[in-house]
Each structure stands twice: as C-alpha cells, then as structure tokens.
C-alpha cells in the first residue's frame, strides 16, 4: 500500500525532530560548559511527541507545555537562536532571559509557554479552549504534561470541567515512565493514564510516542473531534527520555539495559527508514538535512553566546502592564522582522457570545426530573 504522506511532509517532520535532537545535544553540552544554568530538562528521545502533533494542527491553534519545553516551540517554528539565547539568560531570548529553560513563550507561533509547577498548565489550556468556544472560533488547544502530573488535582479538576463543557482541548500526556526519578508504576494506582479519561466521560487513547506518524494520526483525528464540538481528548503518548530528568540527573534509577532497549525505538531513524522504504526519500535527502540542521544549531549557539545579557532596567519591566503599553513581539524586538501574525481578538463590542454552556431548556428539564422548581 502506498504511503499516505508526501515527501515534503515526511522531510518536514524529520527535519524538525532532527533539529530538536541536535539542539538538545548542544544544550546538554553548553550546560556542562556552564553557559546554561538552573533546571534544564532535555527532550532527547521524545521528539516524535512534539513534532507529529504539531504537523497535525493549524499554525494558529494554541499549544502549551510543562518545563520540558524546548522541543515544542522548535516544532512550532520558533527561532532556534532565540530559544538558545533564553537558555543562556541573554536579552535576546524569547523572554529577554527572564524565563529560562522552563518558561519558553512564543506567542507569534501560538506557543503559550512552558510552566514549572507540575500540572499547573493543565487548567490554563482548558481556559484557552474555553475562550475559543466563547468566541465561536474552531481552534483547538494542545496541552502537554508529564505522567506524574496526572496525579495532580489540577488534572482531575480540569478534565471534569473540560468534558462537562466539551472544550476543544487535546491533552497529551508524555508518559516517559518516570516522574523525576520515580517510576510511574510506583506512584500510580492506574499507571495507564489514558484510562483515567473514562472517569470523566471523555475520549482517552494510548499512542506510540516513539512514532512520529502515529502521533500525527492520533492528533489529526483528535483535532477533528474537538473542532466538531465533541469535547476534549486525552492522548497518552508512551515515550521515553534517553537522558535523565534534567541535565544534572545521572538517572541511576533505571538500568542500562532498559535504556539500551528503548534506544532501539529511536523515533528519528524510524521515520527515516519509513521514508526510504516507501521510496519517498533517499539517503542524500537526509544528509542534506543533517548538514543544514548542524549549521543551524551552530549558528544558534553562536548567536546566544554573542548576545548581551539583559539590561538592568529590564528588572523593572514586564511585571505590571502600564496603561497603553504594547505587548512585546520577540522576533520584532530582537531580529527587527515585522511580526504580522500576532493574535488578534474581537473587541467586546464586536464579540457576540452565542454559546450556551447550560441551555435553559436542558436546565429546566433537569429540574423537572429532580422535582425542583426554578
């Protein structure tokens, strides 16, 4: 059977996964050189989970993540140099060096941030999806979180609301099997996270998180379901991080054998082999990408290294929005490019809210059934 994918699609996905891999390898290296500090969580091994879904949604759909958040913005199209500069704590970073590794934000590419509190971003995603429904827009929100976050109250509280109100949000649990150094099975009564969706009457499915195309298909399907107003979806991407929880973690809590076994599942050669087997690409295509990406990452490190630290006056900016103050558009600020696709929303006068969260008839019927009068 012929592959349903085009050469361009496969090479785009490959290029992005490869960029994330090389970017993260250099990140780890720069951390050991002391150029990057703080907590720094690498994405190596999980690239398929960021790249497949991103190709399955629209550029104007919303996305947000947890603290392992370098991969998703790169998949969305963020500037690698500016992400690296943020890791270096430089003024040219996406957040002017105020956010660091755990707080990458790129609103131009509709990436609404990395968050450092486990599970803290889960309700935010529901709120963004709520706003889409409120404005009658058919956007979906994709929200990443780790397996350990599924044990947070925020997860349960949000799934309940998202399902009850049929919010167009796709939750992608990146189950890399460890919450920091603790195996998920040791802390979870039900380690198969997707099963928890059933408790809230919502759709939940496991996906092979080491396969970019499977992630792509699952999210394409979930997005159509969300856009049709059928409610949220929980996907459990079964994946694996080849490195420790953070750069500082030697990951002695798992065996060499386990890691070696998982490395055989590397999503990057898997996609390359698929493309070659289906005669959609040849070795030289990948060699060209390898070289381009290496140069891109070299340039990113050079850009970060040569960038100045943020000006001290920056301490006093970006805490409170002053009257009439505009929002900062990072690429415009740093690279001088005109950023045109900044999100625009209808003003309160233009907006017509047509959505009925709890239609009056339904509410009255429910009252009647319960023997209540309004």
């Amino acid at each position, binding site marked *: 059977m012929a592959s349903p994918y085009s050469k361009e699609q496969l090479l785009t996905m490959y290029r992005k996964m490869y960029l994330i891999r090389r970017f993260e390898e250099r990140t780890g290296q720069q951390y050991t050189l002391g150029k990057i500090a703080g907590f720094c969580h690498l994405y190596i091994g999980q690239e398929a989970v960021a790249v497949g879904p991103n190709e399955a949604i629209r550029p104007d759909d919303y996305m947000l993540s947890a603290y392992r958040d370098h991969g998703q913005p790169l998949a969305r199209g963020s500037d690698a140099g500016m992400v690296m500069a943020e890791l270096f704590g430089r003024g040219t970073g996406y957040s002017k060096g105020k956010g660091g590794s755990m707080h990458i*934000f790129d609103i131009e590419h509709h990436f609404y941030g990395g968050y450092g509190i486990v599970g803290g971003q889960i*309700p935010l995603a529901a709120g963004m999806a709520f*706003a889409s429904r*409120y404005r009658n827009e058919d956007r979906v929100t994709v929200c990443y979180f780790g397996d350990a976050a599924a044990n947070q*109250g925020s997860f349960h509280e949000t799934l309940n609301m998202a399902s009850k109100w049929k919010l167009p949000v796709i939750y992608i649990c990146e189950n890399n099997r460890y919450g920091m150094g603790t195996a998920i099975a040791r802390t979870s009564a039900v380690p198969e996270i997707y099963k928890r969706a059933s408790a809230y009457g919502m759709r939940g499915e496991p996906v092979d998180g080491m396969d970019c195309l499977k992630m792509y298909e699952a999210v394409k399907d979930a997005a159509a379901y969300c856009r049709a107003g059928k409610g949220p979806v929980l996907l459990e991407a079964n994946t694996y991080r080849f490195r420790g929880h953070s750069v500082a973690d030697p990951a002695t809590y798992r065996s060499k054998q386990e890691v070696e076994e998982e490395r055989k599942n590397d999503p990057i050669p898997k996609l390359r082999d698929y493309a070659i087997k289906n005669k959609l690409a040849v070795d030289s295509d990948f060699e060209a990408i390898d070289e381009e990406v290496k140069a891109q990452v070299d340039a990113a490190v050079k850009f970060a290294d040569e960038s100045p630290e943020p000006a001290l006056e920056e301490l006093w900016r970006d805490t*409170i929005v002053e009257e009439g103050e505009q929002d900062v558009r990072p690429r415009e600020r740093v690279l001088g490019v005109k950023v045109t696709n900044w999100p625009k929303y209808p003003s*309160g006068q233009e907006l017509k809210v047509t959505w*009925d*969260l709890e239609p009056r008839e339904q509410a009255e019927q429910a009252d009647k059934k319960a023997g209540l009068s309004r």
Partner: protein
Amino acid sequence: MTMPELMYREALNQALAEEMERDANVFLIGEEVGRYNGAFKVSQGLLDRFGSARIIDAPISELGFTGMSVGAAMVGLRPVVEMMTWNFAILAMDQIVNNAAKLRHMSGGQLRCPIVFRGPGGAGGRLSSQHSQALEANYAHFPGLKVIAPATPADAKGMLKAAIRDENPVIMFEGERLYALKGEVPEGEHVVPLGKADVKREGTDVTIITWSRMYYFCMEAAEQLAKEGISAEVLDLRTLRPLDEEAILASVRKTNRVVIVEEGWALAGVGASVVDLIQSKAFDDLDAPVGRVTGLDVNMSYAANLENATQPDAPKIIDAVKKVLYREGA
C-alpha cells in the same frame, strides 16, 4: 442632588452588570454565581440577563476553575472569578500567584492576564478558624498582582469597574460583613482608579490608616475622639498593592502621628510595610512611634466573646490613638 443608596452587594452587582454590558469579553465564573444567584447575592439576576456562557456555575474545584479563567485571560477574555470566600481561594493560590501574577514576566512582556479575582474576606460571624481570616497580606506580597479592598459601596462599585478594565490580575477583597451595608453610590460611569487612597475624614492630630471593614471601626473611633477634642484623620488605603505612598506620607506630614488598623495578623501584615514606608521616608515628621492595631496572633474562635476579643474594634483603636498622643489612660 442625592445619589441612590445601595447595599455594598448591590453596588458590586451594578458594576458587574455595567461592565458585562459594555464588554462581551467579560464573564463571571464561580461557585453558585448563576442559578443560585450568588452565595452572597452579588450576582443576583445576572444569569437571566447574560446567559450561561457568561455567568458560569463552576464545580467546587477552586484551583481548576481559577486556572481555567487565567487561561482564558491569556488569550484576551476578561474573566471575573468569584471566590465564594477567600478562605477557599487558598486552594487556588498556585494558579493566582504562580501563573496569573507571573505570566507577563515569564513571557518577557508577550502576555497579559486581565483578570479579577474577587470575593468576601475577613471575619464572618461565628464561623471559627477556617472561615474567618483576613488574607490580603498573602496576595499583597506578590509582584504582578494588584490588591484592592474597598470599604464603601461607592468604592466597591468604582473599584470593581476599574479592576475589570485593568490589564493586570487584580485581587479584590470584599468585606463579608459589608455586603448588606448601605451607602450612596453614583449611577453609571463611576470608576475609582486603583492605587489611590482616600482621605475619608480630615483631621489634624493623628492619622488612622486602614481599609475594608476596619474603616468603620476607625470612623467610630474618630467620632468618639472628636468628642474628647482629638482630631483624627482617617485614610482609607483602598488599594494595598501598589500602596499610595504619596497619600500616606502627605497625611503623616500633616498630623505627625499614625495608627494603622488592620484585621489580619500583625506579623508580616500589610501594616508592617506601611510602618516601614513611614519610618524610612518620613521619620523626621513623626512625633511618636507608629501604632498598630491588628487581629490577635491567634486563630479565630467560635465562642462569641473570644471572637470579639480577637478582632480590632473602636475602643482598641481609641487606646492606640491615645498612646501615640501620649495621653493619659492609654
């Protein structure tokens, strides 16, 4: 021309209705705000007027619906989150302080979070420890938030309107025991700017600085002091973050003596910061050490006598004023 008299809760209701009418991005969410018409009836009639997409009955999941509202604000809606009481908002504190307060900073100025968190604070009547606490100091501690606590119905309306229009997260403490209190409230467009204190009573001998429900005890004390020939100025801070430093210092320079009255605990309270401000910027204008009247350093009891003894009242304020005036009997 006399203005209509409204209860504090009615003034809030009017502010909400007017702002929702003016801007369809504004919605109200909270426990019991819709079909129940609000636990304290602040949202009375709003569901019928604005529908279920804009007046939203939330599940009892404080962290969940607070965080959801923050997310909605990140993409341009203007949520008003009603906390049934600020005691329950403790469950939602992560979303308020770790997300709402920090989004603009962490994003380097890319994001804004125009959201209001409001609800009753301070002691209830005989509600014991978990429902009787003045928690504004907790929020005043965090950069990225604005914290307001209006005392009068007119301020309640004007400040809620300003809060809804503000581009930042605003924490609004209403007085649980103020909701039924009446006062003149201007009709229509009445907006009280945030960050501005208000001299509610002019005086020359001493400044009493306060906010929210304690304002009424301060006014009562000031009236009694007047009978003894002591002229007290009552400065209602109204906004606790940012503090109106100018108004505080101006009054200190006028009266040279200060008593700060707050319902919350003394240690790390808002009043402690006001004392710090005064001693660092107006030390030479002081004729006596700054006095403080606060809630006692204990949890609230259920027993009526213990409950009363825990809180500031007019006699305690009068004592404190006499002490800073070096009067006998203090």
